[in-house]
């Protein structure tokens, strides 16, 4: 056991693992960049429509059904299916199948949390806002979104952590990222590398989770804490 951890330590202290395409800085950057891109675009796609639909109280049943179905599809499968699709589309391997898969993965939790957050706003607040003369858009932007913000951010958190996790599988479709260490390590039986890759990915995921938690708490008005009743999706 001890020798094993020594080998892992060696891997981390080996300077060649810090340089070049396969170096830690690059792979970390790739992973972070891909996460940011996919969650960013997913947020643009998912959040505004969710706010509007939730505000108008349309489509609730579909949302629940849709999220349940999306949860039933393994994230591994989403990455795998993306590959033949992007190839047929001429987009090739590597970046595109990974990006599209992660995009597809991130949208449901963001959409459902945003929807739930907006519909969960106290109807009395919305009613008094309308009564005071706020337009529908003002009601959304000044009342509903700020009150629902912690829940929306929770959706971002869930999606981001899920994306970080699934991006590790991107290595299977010839992409890079931290998953490379794990997949390549398995392939070459370099188990210390596998372990090291695991540490890096875990650190990234936990950091993201903590950062979002702090952010969520910061935007929660004092005295109001939203308990997530529905289990976080993976």
């Amino acid at each position, binding site marked *: 056991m001890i020798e094993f951890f020594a080998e892992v330590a060696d891997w981390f202290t080996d300077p060649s693992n810090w340089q070049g395409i396969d170096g830690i800085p690059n792979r970390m950057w790739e992973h972070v960049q891909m996460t940011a891109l996919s969650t960013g675009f997913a947020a643009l796609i998912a959040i505004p429509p969710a706010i509007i639909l939730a505000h108008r109280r349309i489509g609730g049943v579909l949302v629940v059904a849709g999220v349940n179905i999306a*949860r*039933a599809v*393994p994230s591994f499968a989403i990455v795998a299916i993306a590959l033949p699709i992007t190839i047929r589309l001429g987009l090739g391997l590597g970046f595109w199948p990974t990006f599209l898969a992660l995009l597809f993965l991130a949208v449901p939790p963001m959409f459902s949390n945003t929807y739930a957050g907006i519909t969960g706003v106290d109807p009395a607040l919305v009613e008094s806002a309308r009564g005071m003369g706020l337009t529908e858009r003002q009601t959304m932007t000044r009342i509903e979104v700020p009150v629902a913000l912690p829940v929306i951010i929770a959706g971002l958190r869930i999606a981001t952590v899920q994306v970080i*996790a699934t991006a590790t599988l991107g290595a299977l479709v010839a992409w890079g990222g931290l998953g490379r260490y794990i997949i390549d390590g398995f392939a070459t039986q370099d*188990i210390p590398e596998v372990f090291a890759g*695991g540490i890096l990915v875990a650190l990234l*995921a936990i950091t993201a989770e903590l950062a979002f938690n702090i952010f969520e708490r910061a935007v929660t008005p004092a005295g109001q804490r939203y308990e997530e009743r529905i*289990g976080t999706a993976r």
Partner: protein
Amino acid sequence: MTLIAQAASGWFRWDWITNNADAIWDRTLEHVYLTALAVGIGLIISLVLSVVSLKWRPTYQPITWVTGILYTIPSLALFAFLVPVTGLSVLTAEIGLVSYTLLILIRNIVTGIDAVPADVLESAAGMGYTQGRRFWDIELPIAVPVIITGIRIATVTVIGLVTVTSLIGLGGLGFFILRGLQNFSSPIGTTQIFIGTILSVVLAVAADVSLAGIQRWLTPWANRGVAE
């Protein structure tokens, strides 16, 4: 008809499915086995930890914290940690899978029990229930709907994660997904990916619906209308 068949054969190979029906069935069984084992063990551990949390409130935070970290760690990373210790085995897969169920199950069990109305607890005490008997006869049965919801979420999650165990030599239906990736350029590869995916989804939906049915069967009282 032949044109469609020809175009489809560029994507799909039905004959591969019929030829490998046995393997598909075996892998499906493997998938169900890995899932049932993980959720079953996870449930037992979660029940124990939930009772601990409920009896000694201060332990709930640390327990949630630890299971939360286990949940956040990406599955691939978790398997990466376990492989050096337990090798490429069912044990590795199960330790990983069970870890993912804990947060969901514990949270749902504790929330479900907490949600039992105070007047029900008081009247039970007033009638002469001991604390232990009250937990088993009253609190737990009332919490069943919430607990089963947790089991449903955990089961669907685990069914998805079992596919990742293909990387450590198991995978259930994920085996075909991985193979398909390795043959990505051929229609056999596409077929494999599709069959692995579709059957996983069917399995997940079937499990979800069955559990929902079990919940309705176990709790006839939860579905009756309100009189006033």
